[in-house]
């Protein structure tokens, strides 16, 4: 359902230097896959996720999502797409301060057609095992709990695709493990999960690893092949 054809993206930094963040990237991801996009920092993996997640547009190339050419969509249409089809999980959680877990999870509903629904939000919290913490404020939760609330928020509109940018980057091993388990469960339930990471242990949890360096995709293999290739 995700098809990119030779997409490129460049940024001009202050000082006039042009950085080629992504160059000629082509890939296809089918519904229900669990993919890890792996690379060192500065490799362009975040840029790729931003484009795949409809937060950014490529300079050249085409991107078809669900058989729709997203290059022709307006900014507002893209926003609607994200609201309905995509859920994001970020390394820094990005929960709203001075706001309860429930209110955080409800956020995507505010911009959805159905409007805010306490039931939907509670259901999402239940899926990540945090229903009893619904009334807690975000600063009263541990890092792992905050990330799980973020996952619930990403799920509340029941999107098809989940994008996670270094989801365990700010977590200790135990919490990180909890979070990865949830992604595995969601994958089993039919969600398409796309993970961005520089950590090979995290990447190993996915079925498929796409490696990217200096803006170019250098490999795209089934996970076991990757592991055996690196001798782990």
């Amino acid at each position, binding site marked *: 359902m995700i098809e990119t054809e030779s997409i490129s993206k460049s940024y001009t930094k202050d000082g006039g230097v042009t950085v080629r963040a992504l160059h000629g990237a082509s890939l296809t991801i089918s519904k229900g896959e669990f993919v890890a996009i792996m690379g060192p920092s500065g490799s362009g993996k975040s840029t790729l996720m931003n484009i795949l997640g409809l937060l950014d547009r490529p300079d050249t190339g085409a991107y078809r999502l669900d058989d729709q050419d997203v290059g022709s969509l307006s900014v507002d249409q893209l*926003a609607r797409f994200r609201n309905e089809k995509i859920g*994001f999980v970020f390394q820094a959680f990005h929960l*709203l301060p*001075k706001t309860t877990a429930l209110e955080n999870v409800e956020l995507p509903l505010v*911009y*959805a057609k159905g409007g805010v629904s306490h039931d939907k939000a509670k259901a999402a919290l239940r899926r990540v095992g945090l229903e009893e913490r619904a009334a807690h404020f975000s600063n009263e939760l541990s890092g792992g709990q905050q990330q799980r609330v973020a996952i619930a928020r990403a799920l509340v*509109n029941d999107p098809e695709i989940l994008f996670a940018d270094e989801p365990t980057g700010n977590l200790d091993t135990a919490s990180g493990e909890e979070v990865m388990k949830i992604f595995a469960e969601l994958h089993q339930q039919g969600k398409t999960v796309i993970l961005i990471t520089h950590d090979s242990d995290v990447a190993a949890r996915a079925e498929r690893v796409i490696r990217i360096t200096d803006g170019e995709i250098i490999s795209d293999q089934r996970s076991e092949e990757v592991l055996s290739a690196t001798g782990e």
Partner: protein
Amino acid sequence: MNVSHITAVALRGLLRNKLRSALMMIGVMVGVGALTVVTAIGEGAVKEVMAKIESTFSANNIVIIAGGGSRHGAARGEGPTKTLTIADLEALEARIPNIEMTGPSLRVGAKTVTYQGASRQVSITGYSEKAERLSRNVTRGSYFTRDDVEGSARVALIGEDAALELLGGTDPIGEQVRIGSVPFEIVGVLERGGVGMHGTNTDDVIYVPVTTAMRRLMNAEHISSAKLRVRDATQMGDTERAIERVLRERHELSTDRENDFSMITPVLVQEMVQESNRTFTLFLPLISAIAILVGALIIASLMLVSVNERRPEIGLRKAVGARSKDIQAQFMVESTTVTVVAGLLGLLAGVVASQIILGAQGKPPTLPWEAMSIGLAVSIAVGLMAGVIPARRAAALDPVETLR
């Protein structure tokens, strides 16, 4: 875009960020509060001044004040002030048919008044028996008679407060007081007049016959002012000109000389009142408006800071589906919620303060509806104004940048 939900969230934000909210609201609160107080008290004060002026200068009255100065300005008492006489008034009555009656008065000023050893300063004014009908009456005893005036009798009328201060609780009628070194008998107590036009206590006074004032207290042949009543108020202009002609003739003023008297007519009074009105209807509300504007600037700048702090939040909202107009609406609603809450609090404080002040002045409490609705409308307008630039800034943020 659900406005009631955004408003609820905005109110929630206000409550959860108490310090920031308090700082934002102060300017508008003070401005609206001040506006409410000023309007409520101003309305009352203006009405009171109007009523006082109308009772003194009712439509049928003309006041002549000795002393020149501009023809149309308030009397300034410049130039020769000893030229107005009782004979002048008699001439006016005789020669101008529209004049119904005239009442002379002579302002003696503050003199030492003694009663049984105790003395204090009291303001003394001389009037004729006509003042009973032209100015105010007595509640006890009796007014001067024509004979009193013609004979320069040593009789006096005393105000309630002066009586209380000098004689304590004793009934003043029949008692003897000394004005300066001259003994007088009190024959009447003046009805209450409250606070006068110039802020003086009109109940701390003593009236004596004008002729007595002239001959026994001041050794003068002139009077300081006169109140005239006309029969037909529509002919006021002609009467005014006739008075001017007669007095100029009697005072032998050549055409190049200014009047050595001033006249105050109802038209003039209306103009004076409108002039003082301006303070309350223009000047003070303007200052309050400036305060409110300052409040708006405070809110706008604090909101800009807030937008900057909340860049990740805005990016996140866009990532989960907020469009630019959703973000704009959110911040406009936030700033308007702040100003409306601040305005309501300011209104409350202003209404309470104005009721206390009016109550202390002995006036009936009135809810200043006009001020309140203006204050509320202003609050909403200010909120929208203050929110425009911060909202636009917020809406223009790129989620990619803010979510790094």
